[in-house]
């Protein structure tokens, strides 16, 4: 009985092995697997890239593990992966520890303020100061004069505001708190920015789905999620007042406008990005709560154990493809494509990458 079962299984395995080898031989190139690890926020986009790139170059596989920015930075530091990914730039201290690390912003994400006000869909207007005071617990009612002032055409209910935030450490929280710190001195002093915070009040939901679940279930609540998540799940989001004083609806265009507005102040790829932030960016149409997310690559790839010249070349070519052709996959997944200026900056950065001092492009 056992043998009867075993034989076809063996045959199938052998066959699978053969076809696998055959495929490799056809491509006429060595099979290369590039591993990366890090942030979960850009994961859908990176997964799409790795799928499309594999179709383009069948001998190259990109294996990306979305273990969180923290894990990504740690693995990059330990040189166990070929590239890392993080939603926040490396801190000054981390940057100094990881000698020769490069930041390559690969896409832009935005955070939207979502709310549940029965009858008021997608038209609430808020300013950064008001959002900060709601999350600080200083504005507690929906009909507070400061909210009413921004929304003269909406009749706001006399109800307690239920604040919802992320309970898990996340890049989304980082961007949101980065923005609040930029617009509210009190927030900066009392809470600050980070992936996890000491929240003054509110309910914690796990992940975007946890926060949106809480907001959907609790009338009169307010929270924040990623743009893509809010669009796909049709949750009402607020228009936010930007630096130019205009109320801007979050969209791929307004997020890209924010990145373009911040370009002038960006450092070079091999410098520290610790202070980089595109929240509250200047520009008429810039949506103020947005952020780059970064790929982290060593300048000299030979520092990574097991790296070969062929693999280093494949990685650099993949990065080049990501910042050019790869960008066209961003909008369908609700990420904003990089503005021209950032692509140029990245080109310079990628040209810096070497293998044993040999240039790869």
């Amino acid at each position: 009985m056992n043998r009867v079962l075993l034989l076809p299984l063996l045959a199938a395995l052998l066959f699978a092995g053969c076809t696998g080898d055959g495929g490799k031989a056809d491509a006429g190139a060595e099979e290369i697997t590039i591993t990366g690890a890090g942030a979960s926020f850009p994961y859908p986009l990176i997964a799409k890239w790795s799928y499309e790139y594999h179709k383009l170059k069948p001998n190259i596989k990109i294996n990306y593990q979305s273990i969180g920015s923290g894990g990504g930075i740690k693995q990059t530091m330990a040189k166990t992966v070929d590239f890392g990914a993080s939603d926040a730039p490396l801190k000054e201290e981390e940057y100094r520890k990881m000698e020769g690390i490069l930041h390559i912003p690969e896409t832009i994400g935005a955070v939207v303020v979502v709310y549940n006000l029965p009858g008021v869909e997608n038209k609430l207007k808020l300013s950064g100061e008001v959002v900060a005071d709601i999350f600080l617990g200083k504005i507690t009612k929906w009909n507070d004069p400061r909210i009413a002032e921004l929304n003269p055409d909406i009749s706001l209910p006399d109800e307690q505001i239920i604040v919802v935030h992320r309970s898990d450490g996340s890049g989304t929280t980082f961007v949101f708190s980065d923005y609040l710190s930029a617009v509210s001195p009190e927030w900066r002093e009392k809470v600050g920015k980070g992936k996890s915070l000491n929240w003054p009040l509110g309910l914690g939901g796990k992940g975007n789905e946890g926060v949106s679940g809480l907001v959907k279930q609790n009338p009169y609540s307010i929270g924040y999620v990623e743009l893509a998540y809010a669009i796909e799940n049709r949750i009402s989001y607020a228009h936010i007042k930007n630096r130019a004083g205009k109320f801007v609806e979050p969209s791929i265009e307004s997020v890209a406008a924010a990145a373009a507005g911040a370009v002038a102040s960006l450092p070079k790829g091999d410098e520290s990005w610790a202070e980089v932030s595109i929240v509250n960016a200047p520009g008429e149409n810039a949506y103020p709560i947005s952020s780059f997310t970064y790929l982290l690559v060593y300048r000299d790839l030979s520092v990574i154990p097991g790296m070969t010249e062929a693999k280093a070349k494949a990685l650099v070519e993949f990065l080049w493809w990501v910042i050019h052709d790869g960008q066209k996959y961003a909008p369908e997944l609700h990420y904003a494509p990089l503005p021209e200026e950032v692509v140029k900056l990245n080109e310079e950065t990628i040209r810096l990458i070497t293998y044993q001092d040999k240039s790869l492009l």
Partner: protein
Amino acid sequence: MKLRVPSFSILNGKNWKFTPDTIFQIFLGVISIISVIVLAALLLRELIRGAWPALSAFGLGFLFSSAWNPVTGEFGALPFIYGTIVSSMLALLIGVPLSLGIAVYLTEIASSRVRAILSPVVELLAAIPSVIIGLWGIFVLAPFVREHLAPPLMNYLGFLPLFKGPAYGYSVLTAGLVLAIMIIPIISSVSREAILAVPSLQKEGSLALGATRFETIISVVLPYAKGAIFGAVMLGLGRAIGETMAVTMVIGNNPQIFTSLLHPGYTMAAVIANEFTEATDDVYLAALIEVGLVLFAISMVVNIIARAITWKYLKVQEGQS
């Protein structure tokens, strides 16, 4: 007919004979003891090494501080310890009477047909993955608590600090209810075994003396099985303390200590699951590992107590039989 039963001759010191059997026993004993010790030591070493930056920075104060601020790097585990203990105790408070009721009903009262259907159903509860129970908690239980359970509690018992509003549905109470559901299968099935082990002579004696069935259950069956039942409760407590997914989905995840059960809370397991992936700071990571160390210590203690009680109970039973 003589069966050669490999008796535990070394353990009770009787009939000491140097046979291949005893050598084999010693060999197995040494191996199992070593493997357990090595495993425990490795685990402890890793935890302590990982937690060292936090251990040295905060010392014992870590256990009594309720600061949890990843931005400024101040950490204390008190809200998590509090949340874990309160939600687990709540689970026991709700779960134990229900489990005992189920166990007594299934062994003493239900007809055999009902028993054949009901007892697998109760045990099947244990097979539901905790994330599924958590989802059910989000979509069914939390709204139920907010709309139907909390309002009467606040109306009639609102003068107690335990039931102060407002209620969001995501609360320590909801977590306690979810945990109660998760520990009922364990406690009820172990208690059922214990009640089944009560000799029928005892029960018949009690009935013969004129006791009603209720009196027999209360004064003969339960006291006889109480050791094992206590062990079962401790096993349930162990599960409740360590449960992560279902709790973090309904407890509201707020690291503050509220006296009201209708307010959100946080548990040790939940904070580790939530914050570990994005913790980049050394001290932050160490603080999370130290929370793990505290959790490990508490569940070890609970399990040791459970073992000790079950052991004692087994000895008593052996002595009686």
